[in-house]
């Protein structure tokens, strides 16, 4: 552990070195990559999964495709531009992303094959010539709602699609996620639930989620597939959380406690001991002066 606290000033120079390496390096994509067969048909559902994975793994350097928020300092391209898309088909993109180069890490062992292809489909979905199959639902037409059953701590969520005539009909097979509000974000809880043909799904609320002193907790329901179904959400405050028993550590007896937490007996013994030592010293000095006086 000795090395833990040893900073290196040369680190910066190393970083510069690495930087110059990766800037000069060129992608060397073998020809076979271009003819890679897609393992499955690209569907909207897969691109949606890909998007979530992209946000987790790639967005830090590349930004969302087409938004131009890529990190140019390390030569990370915006993957949504027509230029990039025309030069890389799905196989070529998959190769780059699998192998890595310079600052681009290799995802060979970091993601499984399905996930890597989902990301590939998501990135290729920005190519107008890339064909994606499957049903695409209009996001703005979905609503979400839930009822609570206090006795069994159950949430019954309903999802509806509003059609062109304004008539609402239940949405079947929609995935709904539940969250609890935490100070810096929403924490997903439990499994995803899927609506039946009536558009409803039942969610059993776990009983170990911490709430405040009264067990109060804010619960939020959202569509998992936010791109397909939209960002509609429903929230409610319930007292289903565990109660917080806050013990103020400062009020406990600790060695690091502040001065005013000193126990009285300790303070008194300290004062008595120190006082008597000083008194003894004063007494001795006084006696010495007395001896001196008596000697005169």
């Amino acid at each position, binding site marked *: *552990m000795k090395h*833990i606290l*040893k*900073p*290196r000033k040369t680190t910066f120079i190393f970083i510069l070195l690495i930087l110059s390496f990766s800037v000069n390096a060129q992608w060397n994509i073998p020809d076979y990559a271009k003819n890679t067969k897609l393992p499955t048909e690209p569907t909207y559902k897969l691109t949606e999964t890909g998007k979530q994975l992209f946000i987790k793994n790639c967005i*830090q350097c590349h930004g969302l495709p087409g938004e131009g928020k890529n990190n140019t300092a390390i030569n990370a391209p915006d993957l949504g531009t027509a230029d990039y898309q025309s030069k890389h088909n799905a196989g070529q993109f998959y190769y780059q992303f699998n192998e890595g180069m310079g600052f681009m*890490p290799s995802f060979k062992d970091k993601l499984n094959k399905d996930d890597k292809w989902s990301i590939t489909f998501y990135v290729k979905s920005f190519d107008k010539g890339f064909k994606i199959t499957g049903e695409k639902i209009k996001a703005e037409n979905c609503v979400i709602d839930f009822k609570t059953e206090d006795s069994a701590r159950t949430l019954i969520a309903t999802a509806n699609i509003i059609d062109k005539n304004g008539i609402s009909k239940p949405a079947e097979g929609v995935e709904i996620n539940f969250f609890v509000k935490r100070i810096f974000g929403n924490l997903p809880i439990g499994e995803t639930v899927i609506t039946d043909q009536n558009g409803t799904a039942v969610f059993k609320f776990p009983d170990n989620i911490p709430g405040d002193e009264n067990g109060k907790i804010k619960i939020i329901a959202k569509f998992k597939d936010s791109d397909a179904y939209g960002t509609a959400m429903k929230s409610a405050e319930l007292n289903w959380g565990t109660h917080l028993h806050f013990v103020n550590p400062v009020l406990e007896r600790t060695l690091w406690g502040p001065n005013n937490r000193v126990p009285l007996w300790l303070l008194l013994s300290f004062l008595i001991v120190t006082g008597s030592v000083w008194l003894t010293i004063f007494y001795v000095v006084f006696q010495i002066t007395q001896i001196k006086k008596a000697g005169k």
Partner: protein
Amino acid sequence: MKSKNTHAEKNNKKSTSRRNFLKKGLLAGAGTVLGAGVVGSFDAFAEGGDSIKVLGPDGKILTVDKSHLKEIGARTEAQMQTEGRTGIPGRRWIKVIDLGKCRNARMCVAACQHAHQLKPEQYHVNVLRMDREGETAPFFMPKPCQHCDDPPCTKVCPVDATFKRQDGLVLIDNERCIGCRFCIAACPYSARIFNWTEPRDAEKYKDVEYDVELNVPQKKGTVSKCLFSADLLREEKMPYCVTACPNGVYWFGDENENAVTNGTTKETVNFKKLLKDNAAYVLLPELGTKPRVYYLPEKNRLFPYKYNGSTELKKEHNS
């Protein structure tokens, strides 16, 4: 980082520091002893029609129209002192650092130094290059104050300048610190720094009101260290370093809520599960300091340390 106002901009108004106030208090006390002219000054505070007499910032008595007076929203120094000492009730702040994601971008360091008026060579959080033995690969490790639950540093302070709060933070009151540096010696993590010289931009921060939750303005001859951005936590925002990281290294949250949020991706996860699934550890647990900062091991590294194309320590040393 750019969008955040510095404390200087936020709070740039004239004020008397506690030390000046004490000085004036002593002078006033001396005046009372001398007994001359003091009695007459009392009616200076009495109201007179529509105008009112107030004590100006420089100690002079001013007469102002009543309608010109209004309440100031900013927190006073006394308020900041009491609130800063007690902490935020019901919270237990916690930080998790994922070493597998760090590639020494040093954005956390820059954001921290910007916020806390530090010079480039002063660190509240530093990113260290870690070399272990033999064939092991080097990696980078950000190291802030661990905000120990049993902090050795506060035990040794002779003037109660460094203290622990109910929400788990360990802070320093620079106005109280006498610069004895006992705490620097006591901290096993080398988390504390000493202001040997005048701090950065001392002129600019001269009139800023001291905030114990920010350690700004810094004072020459006193100690400073990572505060988990206590000033931001009060506004329910994540610390400067956490949001500045471009690589998702930092997780921050409240242990009582059992959740931590990533500063980069804003993803919120179960705190205990994150620790369990990733074999988290703390630094120097054998000392019993009970750190509030957890580390996830440098496995599955996205950004391995490379020098001359090699990721191994040995090759670098031999070349």
